């Protein structure tokens, strides 16, 4: 006899003698209702468990592993779950694969509500389960179970495809245990829909809005913050002060921090060149235009545009390429600084500084939008993160957070909801003596990642139906409402199979022709930079893995270079480590381009088949990564002055075999089947054209820039590591269309294999790390910009160190993000189907776009 009470059904209510009933059950009915239902359950559950249809919906790094799970090597189809549905209405499993951000959660909840019953939710990875490594961020939801009922948690960061399949098996077991009789989705009294949370001054869960309002009005968050130690601000570097005291007087008076050599980047114009350039600027635009401050040129804001125009058009070195634009919050000003580079004389990087008022919302700097179009998205990012306004920028709106978010999060005086201390290590989370541990939710008076200014009152206006993220980004053109017009708006994304992640485009179309396009991003903004300013330099290394999660080795490389630039000679990697770095970086390039080409074909309509073959080669490379570093995707393999561990025995043999005998063959195969394919040619030739001049002006990088015919590759233009020792070509395209971008990637893989062949032959024995292995890394004060030619383009890390264990400012110049600036230019006049292909040819990764 089971302990659950028998289910009362109308038939059973007829009064019947219990004696007779027992007799009937024994002899006539043979079975009871419960038993009968149990038999139906077996069939019912078997049918459902064997045809789970997951929603084709990926958020972050975990989504890549989810795609791998569905592809050739792991083949989720064996579990009846091969059909990843594009529409929630056809899916019954939502795999929440990756970091759930506040910007994205309204869409996730909406998708969940649209899924028909019975439906399941799987939290894949640490982030979806409980916030993961990004939990402390201001835009990260501490676990999807704050909003949706989760059936299965799959731990790992990221879980390997095998671990995800393990989760699917666990879900199947759960389905096996269900019963029709108690299934909540057949009961009228169970409401499973979740109200869509609202994006107000912060993400507000409408189920608990009264509580949030009450606690906000009481000012509980502000009261908690009063007692916390705030991040200390340092003054901006001044001309002449060779060694400014980096810490407030009185705090650490004894020893002044060591200073790094002042230079914007490892390869740059040089002190003499800079002095000469400052002279030329002063001569052209009047005295006092350029002042040399720590190897950068301080330009008064009123002459900034003129100076930029001069540098771009009139100076003997044509600084035509805005490499990176970022801002630093100092105690006396906010500095916006610009890394300029010349594509005609590469290796002459300079740094421009412009300074403005420090107070929140007061800073104004003239926009360089009309000089360098590449400044477009980057200026919007500075506006969003620091609150600096750019005069003359045509569409200065928030880009990563949403319009209406209450704060400018990268300002030093902004404390996140889970803020504890200016720099890690955090205070203990153990209630001593009781054997208890608490989570960071309990630090915040709201019990969740929530902070709303005390003055906020419009609680009644909050609605989950608003779209504060995309509402402003209406592409130019006639009014949407005009009846006599046949133009209309399409919002593609953030949940769309062809946007390569949680990217959204507001497209204005006239019939099928695109007449306007605005990218909307920030759906995966997980506060990489803010967290990076609290991490010690070493701690940040594994976080860089999660930027462009297809190229973690390359990300490690750039970051290591930036810190090594500050550390100077003491962190010069030994010979063997340099070779290992190059081998890893080039393997990464092959793996990333394989993925990119496979999915470009996916976007062009060759659904998944080319991708399956391309992914196989990537998997073999990932095996090498896992063998050497311990993880397929999140390698965390580089250390300052070397690499984390030597190559394991046998590694080089397999690497050599793959490089020498396999990769070329497979690249040829891709070439043979794809490059001449007529559908491919039809869909890509002459589509998404970007001229060379535009490619430079839009600050595009990597294969996008080179496909337009600009032979600019940092491995040659500003050699880092030991790239100057290898013989290889820079493939360039001529037309700058989608086909050329594909073709350049294909050729780049061949060149990478060429470098790899040389590297695996020449790699010497020896140590793999400079100095002693230690976690206490002393980084001198100063500024650095480390840049590498990542598969997606120029990946730069801008660091300001104050000599402490933590970076004062940490900024990532991400190629995927900046390449998107040119998206509208490429798409105008094309069809909406071309937009998909063009976006595929840009090869964006959202972890890097939104950081």
């Amino acid at each position: 006899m089971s302990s659950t009470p028998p289910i009362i059904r109308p038939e059973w209510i007829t009064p019947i003698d219990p004696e007779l009933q027992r007799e009937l059950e024994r002899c006539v009915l043979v079975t009871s209702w419960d038993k009968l239902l149990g038999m139906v359950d077996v069939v019912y559950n078997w049918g459902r468990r064997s045809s789970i249809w997951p929603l084709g919906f990926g958020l972050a790094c975990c989504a890549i592993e989810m795609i791998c799970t569905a592809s050739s090597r792991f083949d989720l189809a064996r579990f009846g779950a091969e059909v990843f549905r594009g529409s929630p209405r056809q899916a019954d499993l939502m795999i929440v694969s990756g970091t759930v951000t506040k910007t994205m959660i309204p869409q996730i909840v909406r998708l969940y509500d649209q899924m028909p019953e019975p439906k399941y939710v799987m939290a894949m990875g640490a982030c979806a389960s409980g916030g993961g490594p990004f939990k402390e961020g201001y835009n990260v939801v501490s676990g999807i179970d704050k909003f949706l009922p989760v059936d299965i948690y799959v731990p790992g960061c990221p879980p390997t495809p095998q671990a995800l399949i393990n989760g699917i098996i666990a879900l199947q077991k759960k389905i096996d245990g269900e019963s029709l009789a108690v299934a909540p989705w057949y009961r009228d009294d169970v409401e499973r829909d979740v109200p869509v949370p609202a994006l107000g001054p912060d993400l507000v869960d409408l189920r608990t809005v009264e509580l949030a309002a009450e606690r906000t009005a009481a000012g509980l968050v502000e009261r908690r913050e009063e007692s916390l130690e705030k991040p200390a601000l340092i003054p901006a570097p001044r001309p002449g002060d060779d060694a400014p005291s980096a810490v407030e007087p009185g705090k650490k008076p004894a020893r002044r921090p060591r200073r790094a050599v002042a230079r914007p980047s490892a390869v740059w114009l040089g002190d003499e060149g800079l002095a000469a350039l400052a002279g030329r600027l002063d001569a052209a635009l009047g005295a006092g235009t350029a002042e040399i401050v720590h190897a950068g040129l301080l330009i008064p804001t009123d002459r900034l545009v003129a100076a930029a125009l001069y540098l771009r058009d009139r100076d003997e070195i044509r600084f035509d390429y805005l490499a990176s634009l970022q801002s630093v919050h100092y105690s006396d000003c906010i500095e916006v600084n610009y890394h300029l580079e010349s594509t005609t004389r590469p290796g002459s990087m300079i740094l421009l500084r412009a300074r403005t008022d420090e107070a929140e919302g007061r800073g104004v700097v003239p926009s360089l939008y009309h000089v360098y179009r590449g400044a477009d998205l980057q200026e919007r990012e500075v506006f969003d993160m620091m609150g600096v306004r750019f005069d003359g920028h045509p569409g200065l709106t928030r880009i990563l957070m949403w319009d209406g978010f209450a704060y400018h999060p990268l300002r030093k005086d902004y404390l996140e909801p889970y803020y504890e201390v200016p720099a890690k290590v955090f205070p203990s989370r153990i209630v001593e003596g009781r054997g208890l541990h608490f989570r960071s939710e309990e630090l915040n008076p709201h019990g969740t990642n929530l902070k709303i200014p005390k003055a906020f009152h419009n609680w009644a206006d909050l609605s989950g139906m608003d779209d504060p993220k995309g509402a402003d980004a209406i592409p130019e053109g006639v009014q949407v409402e005009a009846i006599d017009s046949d133009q209309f708006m399409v919002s593609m994304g953030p949940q769309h199979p062809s946007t390569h992640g949680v990217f959204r485009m507001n497209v204005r179309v006239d019939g099928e022709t695109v007449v306007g396009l605005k990218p909307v991003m920030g759906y995966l903004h997980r506060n990489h930079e803010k967290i990076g300013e609290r991490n010690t330099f070493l701690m940040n290394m594994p976080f860089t893995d999660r930027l462009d999660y297809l190229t973690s080795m390359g990300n490690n490389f750039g970051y290591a270079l930036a810190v090594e630039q500050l550390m100077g000679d003491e962190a010069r990697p030994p010979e063997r480590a340099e070779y290992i770095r190059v081998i890893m970086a080039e393997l990464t390039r092959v793996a990333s381009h394989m993925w990119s080409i496979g999915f470009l074909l996916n976007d062009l309509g060759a659904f998944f088949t080319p991708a399956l073959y391309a992914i196989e080669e990537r998997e073999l490379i990932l095996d090498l990564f896992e063998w050497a570093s311990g993880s397929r995707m999140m390698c965390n393999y580089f250390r300052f002055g070397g690499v984390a561990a030597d190559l394991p025995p046998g590694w080089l043999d397999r690497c050599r075999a793959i490089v020498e005998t396999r990769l070329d063959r497979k690249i040829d195969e891709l070439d043979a089947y794809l490059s001449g394919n007529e559908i491919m040619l039809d869909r890509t030739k002459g589509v998404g054209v970007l001229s060379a001049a535009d490619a430079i002006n839009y600050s595009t990088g990597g294969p996008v820039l080179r496909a337009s015919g600009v032979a600019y590759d940092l491995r040659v233009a500003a050699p880092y590591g030991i790239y100057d020792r290898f013989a290889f070509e820079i493939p360039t395209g001529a037309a700058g269309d989608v086909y050329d971008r594909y073709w350049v990637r294909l050729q780049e893989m061949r060149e990478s294999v060429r470098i790899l062949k040389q590297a695996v032959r020449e790699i010497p024995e020896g140590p793999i790390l400079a100095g002693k292995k230690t976690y206490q890394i002393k980084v001198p004060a100063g500024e650095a910009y480390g840049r590498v030619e990542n598969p997606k383009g120029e990946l730069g890390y801008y660091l300001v160190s104050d000599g402490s264990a933590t970076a004062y400012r940490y900024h990532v110049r991400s190629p995927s993000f900046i390449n998107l600036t040119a998206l509208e230019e490429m798409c105008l006049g094309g069809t909406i189907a071309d937009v998909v292909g063009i976006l595929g040819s840009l090869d964006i990764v959202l972890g890097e776009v939104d950081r």
Partner: protein
Amino acid sequence: MSIGRGVFRGHWITLRRFLLTFARDVRDGLALRRRGGGPLPVDLFRGPAPGQERVVVQDERTDGLFTVEYPDERLPVYERFRMLPVLIYDDEDGNVRCTSCNICAKVCPPQCIWMVQAKSPKGTVVPLSEEFFIDMDVCMNCGLCAEYCPFDAIKMDHNFELANAERHQTHVFDQRDLLVSSAYYAQTHPEAWASPEETTERAKVARKKDQRLRKALGARTGA
């Protein structure tokens, strides 16, 4: 007549793969077996016993079908593979290696490691952890804790089959959940276990323990 040829060429890829798969299976003596099936030559409905799964190594020679039929077949687990951290105790004497020096907590990038050092009744510090927690919903499997632990006490486990239906009670691992024996570690990390660094470290610790024991014994006989 070039139009449409691509279709036929495309089919050749699939056909060739099919033939290669078949040839490979004949070569490996697996032609009659179900992939991922049980031990008998024709074993259609039974999978291999747990722990007996075929490990499929794929390298530059791999051709034909690429699929590894987890859970009945498995990819090799590389020794450096990182999943969640575990704490190690020595089999011989049951000693927990962790001295609660807090270095792992100091290098942990997302700050998921928390510990309290043990105290003797007199209030002096004992090199052992009283409490030890790892929040696996925050852990990013980066392995820095294991890399910088000076006592070889915290290591990265290989077990990835951890899917479960609940997190609030089960995903914060305490000391009991985290401890594994040194024999287990030696089995999962044979290369590291046999490496000169770890061997000397083990010998050093054993010597120290021995000295301490002798001292204690000497003190007792003296009294």
